[in-house]
């Protein structure tokens, strides 16, 4: 023990030196900015001069209350963005999880060859640049583009993807003759009518949803594959001996084994989907009719286009809160799993 302490005695300066560059950079460009933005979110800084002088009007919590309690455009936009993002999450997370799981199960099938190739094919989209891939999808979803050409083969006239602001649910309901029922239109909560809340994702948002499902499914498939590798073969064989068919095997043997990974994929999906920004910036900028506006993009736009940095920062922090809560949930689940 004595000698050990002697050897280790000089670690303190080395330890600090080793972490110093990383600590300095993370502190300066993550910790400090968050504190600065917290301050700005309490002011009415308009982007002229420094926000850290006495001249900047202090707004208290106004920028936050405007998002929730004050009647006006700020709340309307924010709630619209929350609605859009909620629908986006509601579609992306289940679809990508199921798709990733399904692909993993098939790729993992021992009877099939070419596992490596298919795994690569499914995984590749997720390593490419989100901006570059958005360009490709913008082209595919053009009105005279590839997607509509495929739909035309089946005799379907494709929608005008990025100019159609109608919500999916509204479209479906209008098929049954329901459009703008006045009890729903005349009442609402948080500045949007019930009818607006119930729009469903717009056609334009659907294009973005399909892009995101397409890029992220591969990553989650690889996670499922890794987990499948760890399912004990004996379990499967035991099930088979018991006379279970393939479906029963999947339901009662394999899926329970994959439960932790599924939870993880779902929570990672929840965290990631609330951060959608790049695709919105490149493909739609919140259009048409604000149906692809998300909190992340709204905060950017409010600050850098409307010069309302306080409101923009406030939106960021609300979004931050949503994501932190989801992250805590994920960490808790992971910890439960580990213990």
């Amino acid at each position, binding site marked *: 023990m004595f000698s050990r302490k002697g050897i280790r005695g000089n670690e303190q300066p080395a330890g600090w030196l080793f972490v110093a560059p990383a600590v300095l950079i993370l502190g*300066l460009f993550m910790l400090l900015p968050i504190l600065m933005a917290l301050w700005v979110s309490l002011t009415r800084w308009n982007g*002229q001069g420094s926000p850290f002088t006495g001249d900047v009007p202090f707004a208290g919590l106004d920028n936050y209350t405007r998002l929730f309690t004050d009647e006006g*455009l700020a709340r*309307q936009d924010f709630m619209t963005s929350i609605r859009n993002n909620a629908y986006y999450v509601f579609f992306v997370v289940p679809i990508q999880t199921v798709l990733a799981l399904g692909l993993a199960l098939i790729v993992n099938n021992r009877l099939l060859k070419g596992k490596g190739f298919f795994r690569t094919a499914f995984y590749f989209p997720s390593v490419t640049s989100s901006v570059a891939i958005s360009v490709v999808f913008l082209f595919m979803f*053009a009105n005279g583009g590839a997607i509509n050409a495929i739909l035309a083969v089946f005799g379907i006239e494709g929608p005008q993807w990025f100019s159609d*602001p109608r919500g999916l649910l509204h479209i479906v309901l209008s098929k049954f003759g329901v459009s703008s029922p006045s009890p729903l239109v005349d009442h609402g909560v948080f500045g949007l009518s019930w009818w607006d809340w119930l729009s469903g994702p717009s056609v334009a948002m659907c294009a973005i949803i399909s892009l995101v499902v397409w890029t992220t499914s591969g990553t989650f498939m690889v996670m499922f594959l890794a987990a499948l590798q760890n399912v004990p073969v004996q379990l499967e064989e035991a099930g088979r001996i018991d006379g279970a068919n393939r479906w029963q095997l999947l339901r009662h043997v394999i899926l329970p084994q994959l439960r932790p990974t599924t939870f993880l994929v779902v929570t990672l999906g929840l965290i990631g989907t609330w951060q959608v920004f790049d695709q919105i910036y490149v493909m739609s900028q919140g259009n048409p009719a*604000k149906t692809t506006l998300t909190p992340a993009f709204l905060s950017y736009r409010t600050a*850098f286009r409307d*010069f309302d940095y306080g409101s923009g920062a406030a939106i960021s922090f609300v979004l931050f809160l949503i994501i932190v809560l989801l992250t805590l949930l994920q960490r808790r689940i992971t910890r439960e799993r580990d213990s």
Partner: protein
Amino acid sequence: MRSKLCGATLAAVLIATSACGSGFDDNGSGTSQSSSGPADLKIMIASSGDAETKAVRDATAQWATSSGNKAEVIPAQDIVQQLGQALAGSTPPDVFYVDAARFADYASVGALEPYAQDMQGVDAFLPNLRQSFTYEGKVYCVPKDTSTLALQINTDLWTKAGLTDADIPTTWDQLRSTSEKIKAKGITPLAIGDTRDRIGAFLVQAGGYWVSADGKQATGDTPPNVEALTYVQSLLKDGLAKYPKALDAGWAGEAFGKGKAAMAIEGNWIKGALSADFPTIKYTVKELPAGPKGKGTLSFTQCWGVAAKSKFKQQAVAFVQAMTTADQQLSFSKSFGVMPSRQDAQATYQQQNPDDAAFVAGAQYAQGPVNAPKMDSVLADLDAGLQGLQNGRPATVLQRFDKNAKTALGG
């Protein structure tokens, strides 16, 4: 205990570092003197296309050589965002385009130098354009040029649809009946931008507008406006008019240039864009069809803004003066089709551009843009409403605008 201490030390270091920062110019006024001698001007423009970029670059280079200064033209892809960040970063370009619709925002936060107030010869500019760049009684900057909306007609498609000059619509009813004939031949009749800057023309033709004449009141939900939007909506619903995105185009001029629509409603800038990108297209330009309350169109203008924080204000103003001489304006007109903003250049312009009669005529009765600070997000929200006009209710769109505008204008 010790770790807490370390954390505190770290925080102290960070704050100290940030306090030493020199990025922000701590006070807006008075810190930047106009220095004389050779300047290094940065000029940010929101170009309507390659033609404009080149023309401004050439003129700038000429001025730089003859005046012994350096000057660089930066064409912005998204001038609002780029300028916004530059202003917040206290590193704005010395000279930049300011759109009349955003002018009040910049002026109200003190980003603009009100150089035009004392500039010699400011009276030579058209009075209604000068008015667009006046904030709280001060003229801030001089208009670069002006343009109005008119109706472009693709003559080949026109003939193909079996139409003659007699079919050129001069009223709303004619616009509808002619469009129906064009549609019957399987051609999209009209491409129109999905924003207030295009659809607003119909409001003027119906005798209304988004805001009152003094720009202080929202007047959205009024019978003329409802009538105008209902008319536009009927065109959209019947497939007689389409938004550019529905035609796979970025703007109506592109759809028109590609021959995807027989008519378009765009401004003077369409000439330059068409001759650059679609040189073979044959078209004529007519005044917009009159509505129930007569003719109406919209006018647009941008000014040469000089940054309040520019280090070279004196040279920047000299540069603006050089860019706005009658000769220079006429030369810009030739390159990218805008109309001069000076009164003394109008006669020559009309002589040189007989084809532009419709644009010039429009200037007589054109309505200028909404000019008030803090309106941008309200107007963006209006645009969102207009994008959904086909399936929405005109009155709802207008009421929503009124509600939002009242907050912005009142506060």
